[in-house]
Structure formats: C-alpha cells, structure tokens
C-alpha cells in the first residue's frame, strides 16, 4: 500500500513535469527538423541546424541581443544606485516626514508601471528619450520593491558595526559603502537575478517606447519576427525563440539554486 502511494506520487510528479516542459521540448524538436518533419512528428527524420541559420539571417539578432544586454545593465546600475541610497535613508536615518514618504513609496508597489503606459510614454517623449535604451529603462530604476528590499537588508546590519566605523572616523557615505553594502551582498545578488530576468523578458513597455532596430530588445524583435504577416513557419519561429531565450535559460540551468533562492529572498522579505 505504502509502496503503491509512493509510486503514484512519483508517477504523478514526473507526468506533470513532462507536461510542463513539453512546449519547450517540442520547440527544440521543431527547431532542429525541417518544417514538414516537425509537424508530422516524424521521429526518424534527420536533424538540421538550417532553421537556426535562416532565423539568424532573418533579423538583426545580434543588435537585439546587445540592446537587451545594455537595457538590463542600465536598469540594474540605476536600481542599485537609487535603491541603495533610498533604502539606507529609510533604514538608518531619522528625519521628519520619513514615514509618510515610505508609505508613498510602498504605494508604487501597487501602481504597476505597466498600467501607466500612456502617461509614462508622454513623459518619456517630453524628456526626449523616446526610442532610446535609457528611455526604456528609466521608469523601472526607482523601484519601490528594490527600495523596500534594501531597507530590510540594511535594517539587519548590527548597529555596533555602524558605531565602530563612525568612531574610526568614517563619514555617513563611507559607512554606507564600507559597512552596509558589503554586508548586503546576498540581497544585491538576489535582486540582480530577479531584475535581470524580469527586464530580459519585459515586452509591453519596450514595445511602446522603441521604434527602431537600434533600440529594440529581443522580446520586441522576436514578436515582430514571428508576426503572421511575415509568413515565417513554425520551425523557424521555434529556432528564433530558442535562440532568444538561450542565454537566460542556460544561466538558469547552471545557477538554478541561486535563481530559486533569489526569487525566494526577493519574494518573502
């Protein structure tokens, strides 16, 4: 009886796992076979890399990769800078009005940037940042989520270390840089993984504020490439899709534990 339930558990879990990665496996199958072999699920048909070659030649992918890479880097640098300063102010400094401002910041957690696309678009145009990578990244830099995360991390730093550094003659910014930032390294790492994978995958906002191959990130490029008007077939779309998710997917498979820990740390605190 016990052996049976145990078997059923393994069976159910593995069945669900297979269903869960089936779309990815089928895409891999389609990308490595000719279109007719792929749709007929012809199991003994020859493998080919032709689809990748055609897909790669069909759009400026290298440019898209570079754009996405620049975009996530710009956002991450901006977020680290802004959330470190603000998180430190909220965690360790006393000043009038702090609590009210903190509530305002928390409100932004629920006013999703996605919802404000119309006015944010107007703002980006006003600032002359339309169709620039900075324009795509800017609305995400002062992340309320990041500020909250950093505040929590800095609150956990023992006050004795702060005092010791002060007695040694360290200024406030020096203390932040030499004491708090090094101690919050795991939080930075977690935040970086969450931020990079979020913005690598972001679509709607970049779709709105980019208008040329010079700024377009991978997701937008992929959606244009796969649009039905272009008439590309399923094997080539699959190849392009796999190409564009490959860096993040490979990174995830290698650093799986860190990824999961990062999402947990970011979600629970």
């Amino acid at each position, binding site marked *: 009886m016990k052996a049976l339930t145990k078997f059923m*558990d*393994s069976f*159910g*879990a*593995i069945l*669900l*796992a297979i269903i*869960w990665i089936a*779309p990815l496996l*089928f*895409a891999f199958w389609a990308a490595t076979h000719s279109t007719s072999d792929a749709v007929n*699920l012809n199991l003994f048909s020859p493998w080919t890399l032709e689809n990748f070659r055609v897909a790669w030649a069909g759009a400026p992918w290298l440019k898209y990769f570079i754009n996405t890479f620049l975009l996530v880097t710009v956002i991450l640098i901006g977020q680290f*800078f*802004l*959330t470190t*300063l603000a998180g430190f*102010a*909220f965690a360790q*400094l*006393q*000043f*009038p009005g702090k609590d009210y401002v903190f509530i*305002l*910041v928390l409100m932004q*957690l*629920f*006013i*999703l*940037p*996605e919802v*404000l696309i*119309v*006015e*944010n678009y*107007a*703002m980006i145009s006003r600032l002359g940042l339309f169709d620039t990578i900075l324009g795509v990244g*800017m609305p995400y830099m*002062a992340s*309320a989520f990041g500020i909250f995360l950093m505040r929590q991390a800095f609150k956990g730093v023992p006050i004795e270390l702060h005092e010791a550094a002060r007695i040694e003659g360290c200024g406030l910014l020096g203390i932040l840089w030499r004491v708090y930032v090094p101690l919050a390294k795991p939080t930075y790492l977690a935040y970086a993984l969450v931020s990079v*994978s979020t913005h*690598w*995958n972001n*679509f709607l906002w970049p*779709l*709105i504020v980019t208008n040329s191959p010079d700024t377009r990130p991978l*997701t937008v490029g*992929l*959606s244009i490439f*796969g649009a039905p008007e272009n008439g590309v077939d*399923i094997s080539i*779309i*699959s190849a*392009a899709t796999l190409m564009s*998710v490959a860096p993040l*997917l490979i990174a995830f498979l290698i650093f799986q534990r860190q990824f*999961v820990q990062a*999402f*947990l740390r970011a*979600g*629970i605190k």
Partner: protein
Amino acid sequence: MSAHANLERRRQAIYGWLLLSPAAVLLTLFAFYPSVATLWSSMFSRGTRRKPTEFVGTENYSDLFADPTFWIVVKNNLLYAGITIPVSIFIALSMALWANGKIRARGFVRTAYFTPTVLPMIAAANLWLFFYTPGLGVLDQIGSLFGLPSVNWLGQPETALWAIIIVTIWKEAGFFMIFYLAALQTIPEDLKEAADIEGASRWTYTRRIVLPLLMPTTLFIAVNAMINSVKLIDHLFILTKGGPSDASKLILYYIWEMAFAFFDAPSAAAMTIMVIAVLGIVAAVQFFYLDKRTHYQ
C-alpha cells in the same frame, strides 16, 4: 549637549532627504505624476483638429460604461482572474508537495516545474503557438490519433480565452511553487511524526496541519496572482490579439489598444484609473485585513 543632539538631528534630516532625492525624483516622474495626470486627462474630451480638448467631468467614464466592448473585456478579465488564480495556486501547491516529498527524479521535476518562469511571455506564446495551430499543431495531431476533428483553438470565441488562460497558468504555477516549497521546509518534522503516532492519514495531515500552516504563503501568492491577472497580457500580442471578436481581450491590452492603436487617450486614462482603483482596494485589503488574520503565533 542638547545643541549637539540638535545638530546631529539636522544633519540626519539633510542627509536623509539628499539620499532619497534621486529616487524621489524618478518616482515622481514615473509613478506619482503620471497617476495624477491620468486622473486629470480622464476628465477631458479627446481633442480633434477642429475641437480642442475640454473638461467633460465623468463623461469618459459613462461612455466606457455604455461601450459593450468594455463590458466584454471586464468579463473576460474576471474570468481570466477567476480561473488563473485558484488553478495556478492549486497546481503550485501540488507541485510543491511533490517536489518536497521523497520521489524519484526530484531534481528533474523541480527544474521542469520552474523553467517556464525564466522564459519571456513572448517566447512562451511562440512555444504554445506550435500546440494550438489548427491542423498542424501538436494538440490537433494528438486529437487526430483519437479521431477527433481539427479545432482552431485560437480562432474561435469559445476557446480563445481558455487557450490564453492555459498559457498563463503554465507560466506562473512554477514560480508560485517555490514559495510553497520554502514554506513547507519550515514545517517541523515532529508534526508529521506526531500525526503518524496518532494514526492520522496523509490526507488528514495535509488538510489539518500543512494547509493551515501554508495560509500566509497562500495569501501572498494570491495577491501576486491577482496582480498577474492584470499584468500578464504579452501573449495576447502573439496568440490572439484579443480576438476573435474581442473574445480574448483583457483590460490592459484594451488600454494599450485604445491609446496606441485608436489614439483615444482619455478613454485609456479612464480605464487606467479604474484598474488603479481595483489594485488599490486589493492593496488595502491585504494591508489592513488579511495581514492581521493570517498570523498564528
């Protein structure tokens, strides 16, 4: 002494505001000001070449309420939320219970569950396109083995929204699983032993001990799933574009369409305000009500 304390307080205030200012500027530019500006522009008419914009009060709102498409979209989004939230929570919980148990191939199982989380929604949509394509798609191929007729999953109003819902559940369940996994690992072993000694069945143990202890996690996940049911619309751009005849159109997609395809910014603004109001209510309920009721110690 008090003069010194005073000086210190002033110093902290100056530093505090200085450190906050970069974030405050950006938050004002991209969150607070746009929210107010959206509210403001939702009360003005859409300007045309001949007629400049003018103040119309709540007219944009009443126009929306009179727009049948708006109600279809609201209904779609309610169904979208009503299905994706409970189903992905249920699947996430099952995944976590399995992935936490002593099963075969646990590493593979966990990886398989979590992988969709790291894919962009656009890529996910492309993967699923291969499943849904009529005639050639995997679903139809499987169906034809059993003699079922070809179904245009994305092209007919009865199934389009369901096809969208399945992709969303597939995308988010694995993400929610890891929060359950973490919570499961904090449940002490003795509880399981005590339940075994008392002769409680596995079902009783799960229902009476595990599920109540997971309640705070469930609420955290539910709030996230609710936000996702507004936010996760990228796959519409690939799979259905909201069609056929608005059958799979969701609110955020409609806002985008209003603003950037029909150039009707005031209507988009009015809808945005309503979404913000709903999100605000969710936030308020979470802060003031649920947080108090889910702590057991």
